[in-house]
């Protein structure tokens, strides 16, 4: 939609790999990280460069990865393994260390594999499954402390509170900015789409975080200026909310289909999307403070929780669906991602009358038509419903 800052972000992303090369020559170290609960603030505060790695949507890389793992493992894990095996990704080939947290044990297994087969230096952060308990917090504090020590050794510096506070401020700023962008994209006449915001988020995982924050603030200003008043009599739209397994950079199959068929994505609770930026409040600039804040976030589906009514993940999902005024939920589950797959039926039950469609898929194109039919019927169903509602 011709937003200048979006172009700037794209440009910054294009030059980033070369920039990293330079920085490495100057002695900077790059920490690639995977999974869902790595406290980037600590990496950043130690003067290391955090990069979130892992892409999806590439059947060929999945095959490469599958040489070292079973085809019965989550396809994202397989593809990332393929990326590590090939070492051609401009970021992955520059990593000095890989940090993986054990929120999802399949990713923990991935850490073992890349360490064993491809000789990457790795560090693991344990994550308690009993995350809501006091003992779970106690454990995680120690884990984050231990993780910090390992990174200190690697970086050759010790963590300073002031540096950590600085990092926290930057990340708080990023989190706020992303939330703001989300609320803009869901408006009528928004000058940017959900897809744009998603691209911005993906870019941010690679860019220098301070530079990224500046760009985000610039983008928000531009968006504010370009947001016009909504017109009356808008065409009936199917406002779709995305939930489920992550949709990493590169995996555009479902998003393309939804948009091609006239659906409009207005929000998500994905870990590749908004969830990552929500409810993270670091009260104290110490490893313990960071640990508590991360554990008190919206829980990732990989962490089992035994009481339905108080499940924070579902509460957040319901809240966001309302917030973004969505008409229906497309719940995306990657094959062999049990965390989300096993909860599909339950999530549907909990959402009661919200139209709900589960798309269970992999990164191959073979199910393109089948997904198309489902999404198209879903969009038809929503539009029909709204049409009838408008008539009466």
């Amino acid at each position, binding site marked *: 939609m011709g937003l200048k800052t979006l172009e700037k972000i794209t440009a910054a992303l294009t030059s980033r790999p070369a920039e990293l090369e330079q920085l490495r020559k100057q002695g900077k170290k790059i920490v690639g990280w995977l999974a869902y609960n790595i406290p980037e603030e600590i990496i950043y505060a130690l003067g290391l460069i955090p990069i979130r790695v892992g892409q999806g949507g590439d059947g060929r890389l999945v095959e490469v990865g599958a040489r070292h793992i079973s085809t019965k493992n989550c396809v994202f894990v397989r593809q990332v393994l393929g990326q590590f095996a090939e070492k051609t990704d401009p970021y992955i080939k520059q990593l000095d260390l890989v940090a993986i947290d054990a929120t999802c044990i399949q990713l923990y297994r991935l850490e073992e594999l890349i360490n064993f087969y491809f000789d990457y230096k790795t560090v693991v952060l344990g994550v308690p499954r009993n995350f809501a308990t006091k003992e779970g917090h106690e454990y995680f504090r120690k884990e984050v402390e231990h993780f910090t020590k390992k990174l200190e050794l690697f970086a050759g510096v010790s963590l300073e509170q002031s540096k950590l506070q600085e990092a926290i401020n930057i990340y708080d700023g990023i989190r706020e900015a992303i939330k703001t962008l989300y609320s803009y994209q869901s408006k009528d006449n928004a000058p940017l789409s959900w897809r744009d915001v998603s691209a911005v988020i993906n870019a941010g995982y690679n860019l220098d975080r301070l530079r990224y924050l500046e760009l985000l603030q610039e983008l928000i200003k531009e968006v504010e200026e370009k947001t016009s008043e909504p017109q009356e009599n808008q065409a009936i739209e199917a406002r779709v909310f995305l939930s489920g397994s992550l949709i990493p950079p590169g995996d555009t199959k479902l998003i393309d289909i939804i948009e091609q068929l006239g659906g409009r994505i207005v929000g998500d609770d994905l870990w590749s999307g908004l969830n990552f930026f929500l409810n993270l409040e670091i009260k104290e600039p110490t490893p313990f403070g960071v640990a508590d804040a991360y554990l008190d976030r919206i829980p990732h589906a990989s962490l089992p929780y035994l009481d339905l009514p108080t499940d924070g993940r579902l509460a957040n999902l319901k809240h966001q669906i309302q917030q973004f005024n969505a008409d229906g939920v497309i719940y995306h589950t990657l094959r062999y991602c049990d965390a989300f797959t096993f909860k599909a*039926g339950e999530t*549907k039950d909990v959402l009661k009358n919200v139209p709900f469609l589960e798309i*269970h898929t992999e990164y191959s194109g073979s199910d393109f038509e089948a997904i198309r*039919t489902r999404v198209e*019927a879903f969009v*038809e169903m929503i539009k029909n419903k709204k049409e009838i509602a408008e008539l009466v």
Partner: protein
Amino acid sequence: MSLNKNFFAGVDVGSLAAKSVILQDGEIFATGLVPSGVNSVESGLNALNLALETAGLKKEDLTYIVGTGYGRVSAPYANKAVTEITCHAKGTNYLHPTVRTIIDMGGQDCKAIRIDKDGAVIDFAMNDKCAAGTGRFLEVMAGVFKVRLEDLGAIALAATDTVPMSSTCTVFAESETISLVARGEKPENILSGIHHSIANRIAGLFSRVGIESDVFFSGGVAKNIGMKNAIEEALKVTIVKPEIDPQLIGALGAAVLARSFSKKEGLWA
């Protein structure tokens, strides 16, 4: 233009067969059914032409055509394309207004559809590519036993015993079957096991969308009596007897929609 001079057509191109229904004044005027070829446009046209021929009409006589099924994406002859889910809902509602639940089993996939009294879709679920609940899979099985697809169900009915099968996917199901054949198990008992295992998969779809009577079974596989019985058993329901060839329901629904779209677009009052 008055309504009764108008003809509406629905064309449903599936993976195994292409179907067409022509509707006049709320009555089914003619139908056409041909096996699907590699070219889906051609298959659709063949089915449509067959129906036109039976009806003694020309394509120009048709007011509106709706395409559906996998071939809908490339159907230049159609005014509009609608998914087969919506079409099965409409078609079923048109013939059997009391139906609230549809099981549709075609060549590629299997669907569980819940509809309201007006034939609007309330909810649906479709099986995944790997679940062994499709016509294509039964075709493979017919190949293993060297019998005609149409006869599979009837053979299964003769079973004296049902071999328990727990096929998680087509690959496992096929190997289980081959194992059993090699061991000299009676074909009818194996087939009975296969039908029950597919019925279980279908019951899985319904655990997500729920079941409300009456229940209708559409699609090519609906003609398989063994499948019908197994589903009735697994879902604990009685399936409504179809008034027309259940394979035509999608095309019929498309024709019904052709009628209402053309009305909405002001093609007739």
